[in-house]
């Protein structure tokens, strides 16, 4: 058992596998839904559903998922808003975007929103800059909305 779990802990896959799988998902969704705006929404929703599950895995063993370390910058003066900035993301390697309003990485803000909701934090999350749209870096803005008081487990208040 202990050997099996240590194998699980060290389980790393080539990021290209993830990149390709994600790319296949997005392009398939674009094929099935004509409207890129709908694809954005769906990706956000998928991300949300992944986030509410992944948070448990994160809390159980504090892993990193995309092997990237974004910088945290641009704190608002009230301290309830910040930006995550990165210049390389495994999801968007090799991608050349059609100019149609698609937010290719919309899965990430969804996952952040879902995961934080499970720890009783409601946030908003959106892209300010996107390398795929010609910006120098990708910038994701995270804004604290409120603490979900009715969902706070006993002992956490």
């Amino acid at each position: 058992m202990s050997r099996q779990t240590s194998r699980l802990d060290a389980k790393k896959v080539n990021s290209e596998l993830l990149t390709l799988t994600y790319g296949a998902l997005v392009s398939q969704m674009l094929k099935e839904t004509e409207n890129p705006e709908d694809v954005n929404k769906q990706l956000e929703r998928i991300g949300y559903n992944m986030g509410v599950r992944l948070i448990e895995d994160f809390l159980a063993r504090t892993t990193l998922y995309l092997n990237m370390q974004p910088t945290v910058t641009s704190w608002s003066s009230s301290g309830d808003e910040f930006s995550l900035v990165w210049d390389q993301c495994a999801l968007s390697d090799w991608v050349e975007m059609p100019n149609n309003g698609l937010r290719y990485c919309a899965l990430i803000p969804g996952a952040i929103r879902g995961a934080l909701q499970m720890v009783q934090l409601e946030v908003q999350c959106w892209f300010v800059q996107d390398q795929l749209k010609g910006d120098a870096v990708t910038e994701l803005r995270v804004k604290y909305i409120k603490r979900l008081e009715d969902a706070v487990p006993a002992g956490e208040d």
Partner: protein
Amino acid sequence: MVIYGVYIVSKSGGLIFNYDHNIPRVEAEKTFGFPLDIKLQYENKKVIVAFGQRDGINVGHVLLSVNGTPVNGRTTEDGRDVFDIIETKENYPLSLKFGRARATTNEKIVLASMFYPLFALASQLSPVPKCSGIESLTADTFKLSCFQTLTGVKFIIVTDPSMQGAEVVLKRIYELYSDYALKNPFYSLEMPIRCELFDTSLHTLLELVEKSGTANL
């Protein structure tokens, strides 16, 4: 290191998983003459011993079978009323089997939802703020250890009172839950966990703990 059972309670207080690992069977069979020298009564759809304790038959034990025929509620499997049988002299000598009642799934659900407010109560009763709620509850025959995650899921194990390192076991169960239950796309949150892979890996974990303790987890 004996683990009697594992329970997982969801954020809303519902029992989403329970597993009886190693509950000792307490049973005693004895042949009785007329009149029966222990008092039985019908309670909660069971025939239980109300008075007269001996030969491993204790107050609170449930009548399991009459002359080898299993008892269901207050009737035997062949449809006769238990009290009719024990009051008729011609039926003696009579062999009766008693044992400790096993909790049914419904009873377990009730117990799990009873633990939920107890846990909340404990954290409110705390004289100091930031109380974690009940982490361990000890009795002379068992110890209950509880771990609540940041997201509000409670992992509970019931063990022998001498159990050491329950926190490590609970942490491992949390990891199994996040792997085998939550990463299963067909498992929906807050619903009872019916994932075979989760069951088998939990089983392996409990067996390991039982054999070699928690030192090498």
